């Protein structure tokens, strides 16, 4: 493998990692705060993608310039977070926080199953492709290989902005600090008067919105069709567990590891490509049982 190929693999890996991070960070956040592994995250991702495609098509049909494809993504992400995520937490998840872990997991599993069919009822079974945003930004050439600006530059920039933004939000704003405190110790946070209900609702809306954003950003690059959520969720699980509970920086590093591992696999030994995320997860957890950035939890006696 020469330097050119090495750099090509690096570019591909980073572009892919950016998208994985954007999707997985929402799941990490929800998991860190609420201790719920949200299986429906994949559905929210898929619906974000579908919604963006429909909105963009609608906006373009209404005669607006193609650049409106970008605001459509944001609008979809917000809609997914508020209109879908909010009621889910408020109506369903809120009832099960005191129930055993397995029931919480299964509630989200049930939501996942329902949303899979909802998608099909709304958007049908034919693949949808809406790549206006991608085409708008054109290509960039590196080592006689064309990359789309959208994937090579925009996605990583968004991912980094998200990472920095979330860090700022969690460490510097009041709402963020409340979330962080609840992540650290739910009971202590409640004891000092933090309204855990509100924090949970906010977290879930943000997390769901991030899933929607991931879908929105992925939508111009790929065909949207039934089943895309199921694949994304397993990948996100791998990121969350490898990163350590609720560790946003960990999620970024893991996404990068997975993205690079995957693209180098394509260059070196394509047949191992699908195995990479799981191998990384097993390898990390065997060495660091609490995940990359996790800290060992105190034992209750």
């Amino acid at each position: 493998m020469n330097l050119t190929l090495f750099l090509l693999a690096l570019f591909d890996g980073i572009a892919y990692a950016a998208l994985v991070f954007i999707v997985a960070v929402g799941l990490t956040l929800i998991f860190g705060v609420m201790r719920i592994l949200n299986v429906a995250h994949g559905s929210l991702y898929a619906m974000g993608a579908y919604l963006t495609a429909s909105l963009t098509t609608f906006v373009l049909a209404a005669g607006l310039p193609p650049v409106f494809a970008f605001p459509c993504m944001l609008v979809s992400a917000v809609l997914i977070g508020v209109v879908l995520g909010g009621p889910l937490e408020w109506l369903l998840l809120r009832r099960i926080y005191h129930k055993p872990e397995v029931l919480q997991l299964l509630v989200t599993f049930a939501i996942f199953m329902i949303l899979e069919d909802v998608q099909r009822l709304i958007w049908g079974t034919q693949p949808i492709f809406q790549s206006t945003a991608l085409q708008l930004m054109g290509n960039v050439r590196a080592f006689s290989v064309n990359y789309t600006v959208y994937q090579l530059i925009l996605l990583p920039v968004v991912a980094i902005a998200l990472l920095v933004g979330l860090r700022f939000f969690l460490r510097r704003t009041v709402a963020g600090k409340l979330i962080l405190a609840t992540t650290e110790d739910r009971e202590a946070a409640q004891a000092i008067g933090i309204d855990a209900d509100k924090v949970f609702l906010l977290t879930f809306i943000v997390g769901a919105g991030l899933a929607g954003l991931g879908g929105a950003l992925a939508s111009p690059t790929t065909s949207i069709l039934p089943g895309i959520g199921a694949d994304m969720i397993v990948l996100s699980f791998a990121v969350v567990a490898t990163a350590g509970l609720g560790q946003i920086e960990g999620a970024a590093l893991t996404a990068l590891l997975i993205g690079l591992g995957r693209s180098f696999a394509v260059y070196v030994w394509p047949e191992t490509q699908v195995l990479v995320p799981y191998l990384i997860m097993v390898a990390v957890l065997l060495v660091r049982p609490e995940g990359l950035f996790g800290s060992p939890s105190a034992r209750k006696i």
Partner: protein
Amino acid sequence: MTIRTLIPAILLLLLALVPFGAQGLQVLLTLALAKGIAVMGITVLLRSGQVSFGHALFFAIAAYGGAFTLMLMPGADLIVVFLLGLFAAVLSGVLVGLFVARYRFIFFAMLNLAFSMIFWSILEKFYHYTGGADGMRLPRPTVFWIEMERGTYELFMFYFALVLAIGLGWFSMRWLESPAGQLFRTLKTNETRLQYLGMSPQRVMMNGYVLSAMLCGTGGILMGLVQGVVTPEYAYWIRSGEMVFIAVLGGAGSVPGALVGAAIYEIVRTYASAFAGDVWQMVLGTFLLIIILFAPGGIAGIYNSLMDRIAGKKEDGE
């Protein structure tokens, strides 16, 4: 005999008579029994407070073990196929168990998920050995070296599955009450106390884990033998999720509940996909939500409270 034990006995009797009264249900119930046995594996684990999101691994390994046996030894007898498939599941249970026994909760669930997904990827990848996504066929084997028509074979498999379900169910319940099982259940209530007793939680976990792998494997090899085909989908995470689903539906921690849950699940799923066409997932999902929100004890819970009401006294539950 109280009514509490009478009803299961009647149900079992009815089940045993299915091939004579409702033959159309026979294969469906064989599959449900196979799944039910696998779900018992999840149920056993649930008693230690652990959820595995990857136990479909053992389900698939056993079935593929059987398929490879039939491929390498054409004409192998059912009992050989069954035992070798089971052996594959137990062996992999030991190997994977060595890795995951020290993990708990979400990490336990996720590591199991990772192992099952690795196996799934390998099955999909190594097409020339495993048949890829199309899977492998298990041609109908002889039963104790007797050739059988499909009808006879299916009848045999029904009773085989029924006997195994009853036998393994009884064994699992006994095991959970045995000293080894009591220690295993302590993992849920207070693991540290276990260490104070001088026990190794890992070793305690191992016992239960291998038992659960064995149960899942039994279900998998039965399923493969009845279906005549095994696909990587057997190892996919949704299959693992389905098993946890059934365990909760039956009543988390209830061994007989696992069997009843599997039967109900299978019937709902089949008729939902027959009559609700393309929204069967939604029907199942809604069903699951209702159970969790309104009857978190599952079918076993409903049954017990019903019986309590009839008996007019409150007994200590699980």
